[in-house]
C-alpha cells in the first residue's frame, strides 16, 4: 500500500500515447504510457498488489486460521464417503439411454420477440447446454454468448417461485378470483379499463390468443414495449416506402457494406446469421482476388466496427450527417437536410464509401443502427433502392404491431394519468425500471386498482404491482416464435416446470379468456395441417419465411425538419449492454463476468469516452487499484453518477452509456452492479441525448477490466519499455496485414520467422508416426482464424457452459483470477485515439513440448498419446508452478471454492461429463476432452476411425463466424490440416519452440487505396 503509484493523468501522457502511431500492437493505454502497473502484469502472474486489495486477513486472524487448519489438516481424509443411491425409472421412457445425452429442438426468444432455433443437450431430462439449430435461419448451427447463458437463466436460484400479493405469498386461486371479478366487470365495459403490456412478440400462437381475447374486450388495449426496440427502423421504412418494412441483407454476396452505427454482426435478431454469412465472404482463400469492404461509422468501438476495414468514429448526432453526405455523394437527393460541416477524415471516409458503393452497384448496401433516427433509415432505404441493391430485400416485419414501442408506452402512461385504467396486466417486461424516465412509471403503476406483473423475477415492477405472478422460463413451456426472416420455430419444454406455480404469458392470457386448452394444443392448432411431431423434432416450421416485398424506388427522401439530431459538444449515446442487454440478463453471472467484447469491462457499466475528452475533463486513473473516477452526468434535471472510462477509438465529444445496469431488484448478482442509465433516458432521448454536463469527481471506483490480464511478454532482452510497442524488437503475437500485401505474398512474411533454429529444452515426442489412416491414431490440433473473429465472446460463454467453469465475482476479477478457459485478447494497432481493433482468442495451446508439464512436482499435468496436455484435477496440489511456466498464460487456478456445490438447483446445470473443480486446483482448456472421449468410444465401438467433423469443441460449435477449426492434423484432408497449410498460417511465439497445437491464421484488412494507413507492412509486428 505504501508504494502506491501516483494516478495516471491522461492529459500528461499524450506524448507517450502518440508512440502508438509507430504501428505496433498494443493492449491498453497503461501499456502505452509505460506504466509500472502494466509491467507488473507482464512479469507477475498475479500482481503483487492484488493481495493488498481489500479484505485480506490481518495477522491475528491469520494465526487463528493457520492453527485451525493445521489441527484439522490430518482429519480431512477421515470423512466417510456417503452412501450413494441409484434411483431408476418406474417406467423408463423409450428413447432415453441413461448416460447418453439427447438433443431436443426448441427456441430462444431474443430481444424484440424474435426466435433463434436451438438444440438443447439434455442429460436424464435436464438441459445442460445450448447449441444452435442448423435448420433455423437465424442460427445456422451457431449461437452467441446470450444464448449459451440462457441455460443459467433457467436454473437461476433467484427465479421467482411463488405468487405474491403485496409481497406476501398467495395462491393462484385467489388471484383468479380477483382477476375474474374485475374482468367480468370490464366485460360489461367492453374492456375500456383493461390494459395489457407485453414485450414485442412474434409468436403466431400468442398473437392469435391475444386477438381472440381482445375480441371479447374490444375497448381494451394491448401495448408492446421493449426499451431497446426497432421503432426508428420501421418508421424510416414508412418514410421511404409508405409501410413499415424490415430490411434483410445478404452479407455473403455484398461487396461494399456501409454501416452507419449498425452493429449488425452482434446486435439484432439476425446477428448470428449475418456473422455466418459475412465471415463466409471474408475468409481468406488461396488465390482470392476480391474481398468485400466494410465501412463503419460509430461512436464507440463495436464488434462490427472492430472488423471494419475503415472505422470512422463519430458522435451520435454526426452519424446522420454522414448518411446525408453519403447520399449526396451518391447522387441520391435528400430534401430538408444538409450534411453540415464534415472534418477532413469524415469527408474522405464518405467519398471512399460512396465511390466503393457506386462501383459495387447492386452488390453494395447501407445499413443503419436501430438507435439512429428514422430519417437516416429512410435515407439508407433510398440509397439501397438507388443502388438497386440485390443484397438488400424487404419483408413484412415479424413482430405484432411493429414500431410502436414508444407510442405504446406513452399511450399507457397517458391512460393511467387520465385514470382510465382499472386493470393492468404486465406480461413480461419491467417498465418501472426501463420505461423512459420522464414517464415516471414508478408513480403511475400504484394508481391502477388491479395490477399484475408476470415475470421470472420479483423485480422493480413486481414490487409496485398488487400481484406478482411467477413466470415460467421459455424452456419450460410450449410456444412458437418467428425469426428475423419470418420463419417459425417451436418452443417445447426441455424440462418439467422447476417450480409448480410458474405460468407462461400464453397460459395466463388463455386462462383469463376462459380458454381451457393446454399450450401444446394451442400451438398444434396454430400449425394444424402439418405433422406436429416432425415440427417438434426439427424445431422449425418449414416454408414460413416471409417473401420479399417489392418496393418502389423513392424519387427522393424528404427529411422533416427536426427529425435529425442537432448535436452538441457533449452527447450521450445509449446502447444496450453487449451482454446484459436491456437489463433482463442482469442476474446472469456468466454474462456479468464475460468481458464486454470491445472494452473488456465486466460486472459494470461505465461512461466510455475518448482519450482527449478524458484529458479535458481531468480524468486520472489509478491502475494499481484499477479505479476510475466517478463522474456526474447531468442532462436537464436528470443526473447519474458513473465512472469515467477512457476508451481508445471512442468518438470525441460524446460518452456512451450502456443500459441494463444499476438494477435495484435484479437478484443477488444483478442488484447493485453498475449504474442505471435509464434514469437519464427520456422519451425524447431514447437513443441519444445532447447537451450533457459532465463533472469528474475525486471519488474513485474500481472497475474490473481484463484488458491487461494474462498479457504476455512480447519480447526478450528489451532495453526500454518502448520496445514493447516497437515491433522490430518484439516477438510475433499476431499476423496483421492488408489484403494488398496478402495478394502480393500470401505468407505475409515476418522477419522473425527465420531467425531462430528450433531448439528445445523439452523431450521430443514423435506424433508423425500417425500417418497411416488405418491405425486409428490421432493428433488433435486447433486453428483459429482471426480474419473472421469478431471478438463476440460466444466461445467464452460456450466453454463456460460446457466445462462447468465457475464465476469468481468482480472483486476476484480485479485480482486477475477470472476462470475462463478461452479468452479473447484485444490488440490495438495504430494511433491511441483511433486504433484498429484486432481480436485473438487464446485457449490452452496444448504445446507438444509443454513447459507446464516439466515443472509439476506431482505429475498432475502430463501429455497424452494424442498430443493433449492433460490436466488431472485429482492429482493437483496447487503449486501453480505450471501456470508460472506457461508462456501463453492460459492456466486458471481456483484460489477459493468458486464452484457452488450447495445450491440444489445449480446442480442440475452441470455437465455431468466434466469434473466440478474444488479449491486449490489448477484448470485449463482440455480441447473438450469429454467430447473427444465420447467420439473415440463411439468410433471404437464401430471399429472405425473418428470421422472428420465428428468432434466439435464447444467454442468451435458456438462460433457464429466459424473462426475455429478442430480436428486431426495427421489426417491430410481434415479441415485443421487444410488451415495449417494456408500460407498465412502462423504460430504464436513460435521461437519458444514449444510447438503449440493451437495455431492461427492472419488478419488482413481490405483498405481503400485512398484511406490505407501509411504504414501497414505485414509482419512488422
Amino acid at each position, binding site marked *: 500500500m505504501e508504494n502506491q503509484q501516483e494516478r495516471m493523468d491522461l492529459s500528461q501522457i499524450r506524448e507517450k500515447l502518440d508512440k502508438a502511431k509507430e504501428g505496433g500492437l498494443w493492449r491498453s493505454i497503461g501499456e502505452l504510457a509505460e506504466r509500472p502497473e502494466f509491467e507488473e502484469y507482464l512479469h507477475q502472474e498475479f500482481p503483487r498488489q492484488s493481495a493488498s486489495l481489500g479484505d485480506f486477513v490481518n495477522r491475528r486472524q491469520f494465526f487463528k486460521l493457520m492453527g485451525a487448519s493445521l489441527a484439522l489438516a490430518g482429519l480431512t481424509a477421515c470423512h466417510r*464417503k456417503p*452412501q*450413494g*443411491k*441409484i*434411483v*431408476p*425409472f*418406474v*417406467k*423408463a421412457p423409450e428413447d432415453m*439411454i*441413461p*448416460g*447418453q445425452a439427447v438433443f431436443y429442438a426448441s427456441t430462444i426468444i431474443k430481444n424484440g420477440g424474435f426466435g433463434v432455433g436451438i438444440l438443447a443437450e439434455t442429460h436424464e431430462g435436464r438441459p445442460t447446454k445450448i447449441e444452435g439449430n442448423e435448420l433455423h435461419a437465424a442460427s445456422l448451427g451457431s449461437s452467441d454468448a446470450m444464448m449459451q447463458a440462457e441455460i443459467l437463466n433457467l436454473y437461476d436460484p433467484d427465479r421467482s417461485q411463488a405468487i405474491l400479493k403485496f409481497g406476501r405469498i398467495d395462491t393462484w386461486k385467489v388471484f383468479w378470483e380477483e382477476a375474474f371479478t374485475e374482468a367480468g366487470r370490464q366485460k360489461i365495459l367492453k374492456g375500456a379499463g383493461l390494459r395489457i403490456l407485453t414485450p414485442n412478440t412474434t409468436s403466431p400462437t400468442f398473437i392469435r390468443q391475444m386477438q381472440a381475447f381482445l375480441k371479447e374486450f374490444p375497448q381494451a388495449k394491448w401495448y408492446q414495449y421493449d426499451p431497446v426496440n426497432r421503432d426508428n427502423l420501421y418508421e424510416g421504412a414508412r418514410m421511404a416506402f409508405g409501410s413499415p418494412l424490415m430490411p434483410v441483407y445478404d452479407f455473403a454476396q455484398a461487396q461494399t457494406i456501409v454501416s452507419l452505427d449498425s452493429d449488425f454482426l452482434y446486435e439484432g435478431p439476425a446477428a448470428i446469421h449475418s456473422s455466418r454469412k459475412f465471415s463466409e465472404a471474408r475468409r481468406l482463400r488461396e488465390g482470392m482476388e476480391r474481398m468485400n469492404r466494410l465501412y463503419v461509422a460509430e461512436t464507440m468501438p463495436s464488434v462490427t466496427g472492430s472488423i471494419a476495414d475503415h472505422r470512422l468514429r463519430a458522435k451520435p448526432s454526426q452519424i446522420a450527417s454522414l448518411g446525408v453526405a453519403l447520399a449526396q455523394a451518391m447522387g441520391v437527393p435528400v430534401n430538408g437536410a444538409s450534411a453540415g460541416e464534415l472534418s477532413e477524415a469524415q469527408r474522405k471516409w464518405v467519398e471512399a464509401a460512396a465511390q466503393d458503393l457506386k462501383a459495387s452497384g447492386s452488390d453494395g448496401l447501407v445499413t443503419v443502427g436501430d438507435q439512429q433516427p428514422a430519417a437516416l433509415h429512410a435515407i439508407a432505404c433510398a440509397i439501397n433502392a438507388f443502388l438497386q441493391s440485390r443484397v438488400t430485400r424487404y419483408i413484412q416485419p415479424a413482430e405484432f404491431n411493429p414500431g410502436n414501442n414508444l407510442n405504446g408506452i406513452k399511450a399507457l402512461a397517458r391512460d393511467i394519468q387520465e385514470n382510465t385504467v382499472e386493470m393492468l396486466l404486465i406480461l413480461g417486461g419491467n417498465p418501472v425500471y426501463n420505461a423512459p424516465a420522464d414517464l415516471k412509471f414508478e408513480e403511475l403503476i400504484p394508481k391502477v386498482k388491479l395490477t399484475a406483473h408476470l415475470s421470472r423475477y420479483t423485480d422493480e415492477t413486481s414490487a409496485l404491482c398488487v400481484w406478482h405472478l411467477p413466470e415460467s422460463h421459455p424452456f419450460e413451456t410450449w410456444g412458437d416464435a418467428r425469426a428475423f426472416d419470418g420463419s417459425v420455430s417451436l418452443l417445447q419444454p426441455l424440462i418439467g416446470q422447476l417450480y409448480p406455480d410458474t405460468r407462461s404469458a400464453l397460459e395466463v392470457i388463455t386462462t383469463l379468456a376462459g380458454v381451457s386448452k393446454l399450450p401444446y394444443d394451442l400451438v398444434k392448432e396454430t400449425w394444424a395441417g402439418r405433422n406436429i411431431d416432425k415440427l417438434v423434432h426439427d424445431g422449425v416450421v418449414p416454408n414460413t419465411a416471409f417473401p420479399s416485398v417489392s418496393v418502389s424506388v423513392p424519387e427522393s427522401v424528404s427529411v422533416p425538419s427536426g427529425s435529425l439530431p442537432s448535436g452538441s459538444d457533449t452527447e450521450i449515446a445509449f446502447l444496450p449492454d453487449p451482454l446484459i442487454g436491456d437489463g433482463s440478463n442482469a442476474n446472469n453471472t456468466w454474462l456479468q463476468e464475460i468481458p464486454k467484447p470491445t472494452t473488456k469491462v465486466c460486472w459494470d457499466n461505465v461512461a466510455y469516452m475518448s482519450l482527449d475528452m478524458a484529458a479535458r475533463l481531468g480524468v486520472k486513473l489509478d491502475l494499481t487499484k484499477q479505479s476510475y473516477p466517478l463522474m456526474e452526468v447531468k442532462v436537464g434535471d436528470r443526473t447519474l453518477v458513473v465512472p469515467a472510462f477512457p476508451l481508445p477509438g471512442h468518438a470525441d465529444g460524446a460518452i456512451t452509456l450502456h443500459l441494463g445496469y444499476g438494477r435495484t431488484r435484479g437478484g443477488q448478482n444483478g442488484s447493485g452492479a453498475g449504474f442505471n442509465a435509464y434514469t437519464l433516458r427520456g422519451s425524447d432521448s431514447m437513443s441519444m441525448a445532447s447537451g450533457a454536463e459532465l463533472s469528474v469527481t475525486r471519488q474513485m471506483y474500481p472497475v474490473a477490466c481484463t484488458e491487461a490480464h494474462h498479457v504476455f511478454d512480447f519480447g526478450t532482452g528489451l532495453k526500454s519499455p518502448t520496445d514493447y510497442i516497437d515491433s522490430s524488437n518484439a516477438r510475433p503475437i499476431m499476423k496483421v496485414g492488408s489484403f494488398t500485401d496478402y495478394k502480393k505474398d500470401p505468407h505475409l512474411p515476418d522477419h522473425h520467422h527465420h531467425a531462430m533454429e528450433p531448439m528445445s529444452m523439452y523431450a521430443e515426442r514423435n506424433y508423425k508416426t500417425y500417418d497411416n489412416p488405418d491405425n*486409428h*491414431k490421432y493428433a488433435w490440433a486447433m486453428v483459429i482464424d482471426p480474419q473472421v473473429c469478431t471478438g463476440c465472446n460466444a466461445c467464452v460463454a460456450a466453454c463456460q457452459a460446457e466445462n462447468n467453469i465457475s464465476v469468481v465475482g468482480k472483486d476476484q476479477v480485479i485480482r486477475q483470477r477470472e476462470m475462463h478457459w478461452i479468452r479473447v485478447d484485444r490488440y490495438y494497432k495504430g494511433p491511441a485515439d483511433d486504433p484498429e481493433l484486432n481480436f485473438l482468442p487464446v485457449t490452452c495451446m496444448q504445446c507438444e513440448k509443454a513447459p507446464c508439464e516439466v515443472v509439476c512436482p506431482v505429475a498432475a499435468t*502430463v501429455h*497424452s*498419446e*494424442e498430443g*493433449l496436455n*492433460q490436466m*488431472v*484435477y*485429482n492429482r493437483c496440489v496447487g503449486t501453480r508452478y505450471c501456470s508460472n511456466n506457461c508462456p501463453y498464460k492460459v492456466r486458471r487456478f481456483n484460489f477459493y471454492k468458486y464452484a457452488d456445490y450447495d445450491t440444489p438447483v445449480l446442480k442440475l446445470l452441470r455437465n455431468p*461429463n*466434466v*469434473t*466440478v473443480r474444488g479449491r486449490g486446483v489448477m484448470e485449463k482448456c*482440455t480441447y473438450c*476432452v*469429454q467430447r*473427444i*472421449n465420447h467420439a473415440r*468410444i463411439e468410433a*471404437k*465401438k464401430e*471399429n472405425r476411425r473418428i470421422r472428420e467433423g465428428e468432434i466439435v469443441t464447444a467454442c468451435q460449435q458456438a462460433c457464429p463466424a466459424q473462426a475455429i477449426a478442430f480436428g486431426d492434423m495427421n489426417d491430410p484432408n481434415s479441415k485443421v490440416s487444410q488451415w495449417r497449410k494456408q500460407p498465412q498460417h502462423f504460430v504464436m511465439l513460435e521461437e519458444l519452440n514449444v510447438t503449440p497445437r493451437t495455431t492461427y491464421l492472419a488478419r488482413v484488412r481490405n483498405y481503400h487505396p485512398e484511406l490505407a494507413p501509411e504504414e501497414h507492412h505485414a509482419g512488422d509486428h
Partner: protein
Amino acid sequence: MPQVFKKYHNTVARVTIFGGLFGLVGLVLTASNVSRSSYVTKAMVPLDQPVPFSHKHHYEELGIDCRYCHWSVEKSAHAGVPSTEVCMSCHSQVWTNSPLLEPMRSSMASGVPVAWNKVNDLPDFVYFNHSIHINKGIGCNSCHSGIEKMHLTYKSQAFSMAWCLDCHRKPEANIRPQGEVFNMYYKPPKNQEEVEAMMKAHGLTLKPGEEMPTNSAEFGKFLVKRYNIHVEQLDNCSVCHR
C-alpha cells in the same frame, strides 16, 4: 555413587528400541492394511437393499441374460439399473404375493421409484464407461467377479486406481472374445487346441501373417490386436479423468 542404570534397564532399553521400531513399522503396516481393507473400501461387504435381490438366483439359477435388466450396458457409460416396470414384467406373474417384493409393487402402484444403495461407487472424477469395455471383450466378471454367486450384491473389488491400471496396461490378461463377455464361467483357452476351438466358436480367423496363439497369454495379445486396442493410449490420464 550408586549405579545410575540398574540391570533391568537393559530390558527396558531393548523393549523401547525394538518395540519402538517394530511399533512404528507395525503402525504403518496396520494403517496401510486398514486403508485397503474391506472395512474401509467396503469390498466384499453386501449392502442392505430395499429388496434383497439375488444375482445368483436370477443369473445362475434362472439363466437370465445380464442385459435383460442392465440393458444400456452396451450403449452407454452406465450399465443401468432396471426400472420398476422391468422387475414387474416377471413379478406380476411370479412371486406376486411375496412380502419381499412389496417395495416393487408399491413403486409400480404409486409411481415413486425404488432407491437402491449404490454398490460399485467410483469417485466423481473417474469417468468409467461400461459400453467400451463390453464392446472390446472385457467380461462383466472381470470387474464384478463372482457376481453369479452373490445372493446379496457386494463389490468384489476395491476399485483402486492401481487395479484399473493393471488391466489398462496389460489388457491381454483379461480380454476375451466379444461373444464371451456375458458368460460368467468363461475360462481362457490354455493350449492351442482350446484356442482353436474358441476361435472357431466365435468365428475368429487368422489374418495373413498372424500366428495361431498357443496359450492364453498369446490369445489375449491376439484379441487386443484384433479389437484394435491401443494399449499405449489406455493409461493416458484423460481416458478416465477429465
